[in-house]
């Protein structure tokens, strides 16, 4: 997944034309474009919307009672609780770690910086199952450094930190590059200390980008499957997350229960998407 594609347009000016763009005459879709749009929308409907609406509709196949039973079973609730908590922890650690790494990549200078910068995207390029196997090799039972956290909640957190690493960094970096240095220099010349400058001048400008990166990390974390499946051990009431629980329900041929839990996950994803759009608008306003 690409951080630029996810955060770029949103942290700048979502939906709105960029400053300086010429206002277009409205409503002028030529017939060729209208046909193209029709086909593209049909494609989106068949590939994405039809299947997702099947999840929501079929989750009610057994009636509302069965839906609620499936969603509020002890195992489903435990998995959802752990998913939400571990995803919140992932987002929180990314807020600190991601901002720190973005700052070092933009403001610091050291040999090999360009390579490090390119490697930040590795979690997006590396298949998740390989990511899981990779972490299990270093932090699992055959660990060469003697650290074994396999099949613990910490292992799930570690896997999520790996796959969500780029979001906050790639969201904060462009804002930090654009940031005007004059205010910082003025503050420094007035005797402000580094920590004060960061807290009072740099940080407020970064907040919208940090939050939208964190929200993307949370959304990714709550649905993550591939990197967790090997390292978590899938212990119910302990390391089992919602996505793995859904997978188990599908395997045990309980598609309606699986659809019910999936519907809850879908609603969480939708809420996060809407939240990110709101953040983007706030960030765009904040810019001016």
């Amino acid at each position, binding site marked *: *997944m690409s951080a630029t*594609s*996810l955060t770029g*347009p949103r942290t700048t000016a979502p*939906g709105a034309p*960029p400053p300086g763009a*010429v206002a277009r005459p409205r*409503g*002028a*879709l*030529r017939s060729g474009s209208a046909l*193209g749009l029709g086909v*593209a929308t049909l494609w*989106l409907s068949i590939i*994405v*919307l*039809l*299947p*997702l609406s*099947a*999840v929501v509709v079929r989750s009610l196949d057994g009636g509302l009672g069965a839906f609620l039973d499936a969603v509020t079973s002890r195992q489903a609730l435990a998995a959802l609780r752990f998913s939400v908590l571990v995803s919140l922890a992932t987002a929180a650690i990314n807020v600190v*770690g991601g901002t*720190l*790494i973005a*700052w*070092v990549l933009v*403001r*610091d200078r050291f040999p090999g910086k360009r390579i*490090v910068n390119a*490697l930040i*995207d*590795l979690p997006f*390029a590396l*298949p*998740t199952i*390989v990511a899981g*196997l*990779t972490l299990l*090799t*270093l932090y699992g039972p055959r660990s060469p450094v003697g650290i074994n956290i396999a099949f613990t909640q910490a292992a799930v957190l570690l896997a999520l930190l790996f796959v969500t*690493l780029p979001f906050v960094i790639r969201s904060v970096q462009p804002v930090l590059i654009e940031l005007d*240095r004059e205010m910082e220099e003025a503050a420094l010349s007035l005797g402000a200390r*580094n920590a004060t400058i960061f807290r009072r001048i740099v940080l407020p400008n970064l907040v919208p980008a940090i939050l939208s990166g964190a929200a993307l990390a949370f*959304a990714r974390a709550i*649905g993550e499957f*591939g990197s967790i499946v090997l390292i978590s051990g899938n212990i119910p009431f302990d390391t089992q997350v919602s*996505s793995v629980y*859904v*997978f188990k329900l*599908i395997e045990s041929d309980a*598609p309606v229960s*699986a*659809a019910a839990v*999936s519907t809850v*996950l*879908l609603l969480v*994803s*939708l809420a996060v*998407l809407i939240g990110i*759009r709101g953040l983007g608008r706030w960030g765009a306003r904040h810019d001016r």
Partner: protein
Amino acid sequence: MTVERRWRLSLRVLALGYLALLLLVPVGLIFYRTFEHGVGGVWDSITTPAAIHAFQLTLEVTAIAVPLNTVFGIVMAMALARGEWRGKGLVNALIDLPFAVSPVVIGLSLILVYGIDGWLGGALADLGIQVIFSVPGIVLATIFVSLPFVVREVTPVLREIGDEQEQAAATLGAGAWTTFRRVTFPSIRWGVAYGVVLSVARCIGEFGAVSVVSGKIAGETETLTLLVEKRFQNFDLAGAYAASALLALIALATLLAMTAIKPRREEGDA
């Protein structure tokens, strides 16, 4: 630099240490574990008939999904950046769904439509078409997860370049297709290329959604990522590492391509 040297060094150590422990050492170790007993065994385990078939299937699926999503992506990006139409905000939001929805839910959604008890599965089965636990299901899952990349890369580029040149071409009598081919496409081609690279990486690496719909039949519906999982579950660690190293190499090639394309994409139409 406005920050004291002492501060700067400690922040650098902290940031690079975090990256090393989370990213570099684990990925490095995968390559070490793969090749610690020599290259011969690795070669043997990535050239077994099952591995070759998995690799071929992965490439086939990618070769179907990426072109379709590229065409969709360019058409949709043109509509989002250039047109004003009812429902545009909604469609714009819905395009991001594949990024936000869990891969397992994506797999389940396909079962509920195309599975034997699904909305369309029964009718398709009567026609002799099997989607779930078969290659078409894997293709649909892969198209689903990689759908947004090209749209999301091309739309901002189109907004950035504006439509003055396109309007000039139209004024001079160029048709819509000529305008697109001669004016618009040359300006967005690096954005398209970047989106294609991201799509390819995602298609090759997809695991969750494919794992739900594939049925994991060796030599038939097993992709490269599914092969990694199966070998790991069957205690064939060396085989799992070998297939992982191959996928990790593809990921590194992806990073190289991204790094090469990024500056050109940001130049826009210059």
